[in-house]
Structures are given as C-alpha cells and as structure tokens.
C-alpha cells in the first residue's frame, strides 16, 4: 500500500477530507491509524479492515455519519517518530510524502571514473599495509624461538643422594637472560639413586640419546651411573610435581598437584592424565662426584619428549 500524506479520504457516501498525519504502532511497527483532517478538525481513524488504501485515496467502508465516533486528535498524547527510538521503524514505515530530489554532481555521473578512484584507493591501502606485515611479524616473533643451550650446569653432589630409589629434590640457582633482562632464580630437579630394577625400567639396557631439532645427537646418557635426574616439570602440563611417601593408593610415588598425575620412582605413569613418563635429563658425573646436567626442557602434553629449551 502506498499511503500518502494529503491522500483524500472518502467514506462510502462522500469525500470527508484528507490524511493529515499517520500514527504508528510501536509494537507492530506499522501504521495503525490515520488522522483525517475534515472541516478544520482532526480525527484519529483506525486503518483496519474497513479502510482500503489506494494511490492517493483512502476509501473507508462506512458512511460519513459514522466519522463522529472517532476521537479528535489530542496532540499532547503523541510524539513525533524522530523523538523516540523504535528499532527498524524507518524500514517498515510506508508513508509517502512525495519525492524530494537533489542532483548527482556532474563529476559523479561517470561510473568508470568512480570505479577507477575506488580501486586506486584500495590499491594504495594494500601497498601501504603489505610491506608492514613481514617486519611486524618478525618484530613480534623475535623472542619466540631460541637456540638450545647445551652448557653443563652443576646442580649438586651425588654423594648427598644416599638412599636407593628414594628421590631427592635438588635446588640450584640459574641465571637466565630474557631479552634485556638478566634474572637469577631457583629451579629444581629430582635426583634418584637407582637400584638395578629401576635402571632396567629407565634404560631397558640401552643408552638414552638426546637429539637437537635437526636430529643430531648432542649427548648420550649411558645406563652406568647410579643416579638419574628427572626434569622437575610434569610432562602433562608443566607444573612442578612432588614426592609422596604415602599416597593412599600407590604408596611411594611422584605426584603432581595440578592434574593429579602419578609416577613411580622410575618415572612411569601410574595414574592420571600424563601422556608420557618423567623426562630423564642429560647428565654426567664429574670425577669429584658432582652431578652436571644440560638443563633441557621438553614440551608438555606430548607422548614423546620434544625439546624446547
């Protein structure tokens, strides 16, 4: 329907006036009433089944004598549509006040030129942005990948680990340079003086080879020494696990407080979500019985150790 302001309004017997305003229902978001200006008075007439809207004309299906039943417009009870916020109203409102036109500037009538400038604008944008992508990416990813440090670190004396198959936590100071910042902090690993049973469980009679990212072997742990060093980091999600003498179910075990992974003194997973056994660190003993390690760290959550530091 094309309702126009100034449309004529006709009852079944005669023309009664013209549409002076329309009234919108905020729930249905459509025109619910028209205001009919007739003989200098304005009445609010419902736009229901008895009204037929055609081009320039609203035809009401009752005689003009019935018009008196509709109330006069009380302007104070209404607001202009622009004075409130009714979602989606503009799209649904079909009041036709007639077209008001403004000329398209002459220069804007050439579609080809407009397209040219649009494309050129986009191209300049791309040309500006693209060369920045790589430097920014390099800038941000700079510290993310580092070479492995294969220095040997003294962490303590093997003579302090006396009891067989009873792990001891060894704490040591480590200096780390992160970007511009050099910090010294404490780290810890677990050292076990192993029985032959544990030796078999850990080594299966074979030495453990450590390979760097390119697959080159940088160290081999021979099964001979009486001690092994486990990385202090839980292979599940990287928490620090602890030693428990009296676990309710498993007795003497390594136990991680985070996600409750449990390992036997040989590093084997007994329970919990851990995907692999405890990581044995590259280790050697000096002549004086000092334990030296390469402080490697392995990625947590993988079923085999992948070195990250």
């Amino acid at each position, binding site marked *: 329907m094309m309702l126009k302001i100034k449309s004529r309004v006709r009852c079944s017997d005669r023309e009664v006036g013209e549409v002076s305003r329309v009234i919108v229902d905020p729930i249905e978001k459509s025109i619910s009433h028209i205001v009919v200006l007739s003989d200098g008075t304005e009445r609010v007439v419902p736009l229901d089944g008895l009204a037929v809207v055609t081009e320039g004309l609203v035809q009401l299906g009752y005689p003009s004598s019935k018009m008196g039943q509709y109330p006069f417009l009380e302007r104070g009870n209404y607001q202009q549509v622009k004075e409130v916020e009714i979602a989606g109203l503009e799209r649904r409102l079909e009041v036709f006040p007639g077209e008001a036109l403004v000329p398209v500037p002459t220069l804007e009538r050439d579609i080809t030129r407009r397209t040219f400038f649009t494309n050129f604008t986009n191209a300049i944008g791309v040309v500006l942005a693209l060369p920045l992508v790589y430097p920014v990416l390099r800038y941000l990813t700079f510290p993310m990948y580092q070479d492995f440090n294969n220095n040997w670190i003294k962490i303590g004396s093997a003579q302090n680990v006396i009891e067989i198959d009873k792990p001891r936590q060894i704490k040591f100071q480590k200096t780390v340079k992160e970007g511009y910042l050099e910090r010294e902090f404490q780290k810890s690993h677990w050292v076990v003086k192993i029985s032959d049973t544990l030796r078999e469980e850990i080594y299966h009679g074979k030495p453990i080879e450590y390979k760097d990212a390119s697959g080159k072997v940088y160290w081999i742990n021979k099964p001979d020494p009486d001690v092994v060093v486990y990385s202090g980091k839980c292979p599940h999600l990287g928490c620090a696990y602890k030693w428990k003498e009296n676990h309710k179910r498993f007795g003497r075990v390594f136990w991680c407080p985070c*996600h409750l992974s449990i390992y036997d003194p040989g590093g084997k997973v007994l329970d919990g979500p851990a995907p692999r056994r405890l990581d044995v660190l590259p280790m050697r003993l000096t002549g004086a019985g000092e334990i030296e390690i390469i402080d490697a760290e392995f990625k947590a959550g993988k079923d085999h150790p992948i070195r990250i530091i």
Partner: protein
Amino acid sequence: MSLIHIIYNWIDERIDLKTLQAKLLYEPMPGGSRYAYAFGSALLFIFIMQATTGILLMFYYAPTADHAWQSTQYILKELDYGWFLLSFHFWGSSVMVVMVVCHMLQVFIWGAYKNPREMVWLAGTILFLIVMAFGFTGYLLPWDQRAFWATTVGVEIMDKAPIVGDFMARFLRGGPTAGAQTLSRFFVIHVMLLPAALIAVFSLHLFFFRKAGPAGPFKATRQQLETKMEFFFPRQVFKDIVVMACVFVIIAGLATLWPVELLDEASPEPTDYNPEPEWYFLFLFQLLRLKMFSGEFGEFLGAIALPGLFVLLLMALPFINRNPERHPLKRPFAMSAVVFLLVGIAVLTWMAIASRSQ
C-alpha cells in the same frame, strides 16, 4: 531562561542534541521496564569501574619481571588505599564473570537471542570471550606464584591446539616457556588490546541491539505489552542504577572483607604452592584431571576440542535453534541443556575444591 537552557539550546541548534537524546533515552520497551533487564547495564558499569581502577593501578605498577611483584606489594602494603583499589579490581573481575553468565542466562531463558537478535547474541558471545581473556591475562600481572603457575599451565593448554597451537603458545609467552617476555605481552594485551576490543565489540553489541529492538517479555498479550509499555528512561534507567549500586556494594564489600594477598614472587620453583587457576576456570582445570582426557589425544579433547566446541555451539545457537517460541516452559530441551551444563560446571568446580587438601 536559565544559563543551562541557553547553552543547551545553543548546542542543540548545531548538533540536534534533542534528537540524539531522544534516540538514546526514549526507546519504548514493550511490556515495560524490569530488573531482569539490568544485567547488561551492570556489566557496562563494572567495565567502567575496572577501567578506572585499572588506570589508577597503572600509576604505580611496573610491568617487568624484576619489578612487577615489588610494585604490586607497594600498591598493597604502602600506598594509601592501594589495597582497596587493587582488591576492587580483583573482585570486580570475578563479579564481571558472574554478571556475564547471568546476562547470558537471562537472554537464553527469555529466548531473546532468536530472530531478529542473532547478531546481538553473536557480538555478546565475543564479549564473553573477551571478558574471560581479561581474567586470564590480568591474573599474571601481580607476578606472584599463583599468577605465574596459572599462566604456565594455561598457556600450555593453548599449545595443544592442532597446527597453530605451538605458535600461539610461543606468541603469547614470547618464548618457549613463561618468563619476563610473557609478563610484557600479557600486560599489553590486558591494558591495550582487550580494552580496545571490548569497546569496539560492545559498541557493535549495543548498535545491533538498538537496531533489533528490545525483545520484551516472553509471555504477554498484545494488550499487556501496550498498557505496560515504558520508555527506557527513566524507569529502566532507575532500575539499572539500583542494580549498579548493589553491584558496587558487593564488590566493595568483598574487597574490604577479603583484600588481595600476594604469594611469594613468581619463580619456576613453586616450593609448596599447588598451582590452581582462578575459580571460574576451575571446572576446566578439573576436566583435564579426568581419566578420559589423559594422554596426548585425550588432552587435546579436553583442553581444546571440548571448550572449542562449546564456544562454537554458543555462537551457532540462534542459527541452530530457529523455533520462534520464546516461553522457557515450551522449550524443554533448551532448558534441560542449560541446567545440565550448569550442574556439570558446579560439580566439576566442587570436585576441584574438594580435592585441594589431597
């Protein structure tokens, strides 16, 4: 005519202030104002408070690994009212998470995410993720043991995503393990990127909401919608302010009764501290303890696939659930699903708390 009127009219002549004001305030709400509609405003209020306290904290906080803990201690122990501002910021984040969940539940129960409000919901779910990211990144900044270990484990979880996981985790940490670079990165994400993202997506959220209009009650006759109809201003604004005041009192009360206490400075050696994330991540933490999520693949399922699927489902909700029915009692499946989810989260959280003493 008073001076204020003269100034008002002067501005109005130039920028049509009256219409702007009308568009902001005079939005007819079918069925009238309600306290149930106040969650969104409460969230905006909490965000403003978080931004304010956050800016105040930054006057003294130093985001470097060698001073973060000390500067936080200084705020807590020495500065006048520093303990209150930091504790308010800390508890504000918890209350914000609670409010986000309440807001989403209300929209869900009211069926207000349905056509034509899908885009409002979509922007809302992104805001939910941003709020969780705020919590996660902010948690590291005090640089105590709690902060360091929650982050170490949290980022390790991200590492489990296929293909991009390793890159994402290294990108966030600024290295292969959590350290000084991680603090810098979390800081800039927490105070620059996330606030910008939140403001942008919130603007969209509000724009979409205003374009779609308020949903109104799920059960009302045409007559009731019309007779109870009110503008947004002043009655809904009043109800919003009442809720905001309650929220303020709750956060200030929590901050006063349980002010933040720092643990020892962050270190790769946790001594006797047992790592645990903030309470609203506890259910995820407990989930990863379950036997079914053990091993490399299990971990991927529990840490990435399941939460990822949940977020996707959340976003797809208005597109999957296209039935226009909004009355909760006539949507038994949707209602039981949400109850099941809430009970599941509650049980997992309780399990995590119960096993603390183990």
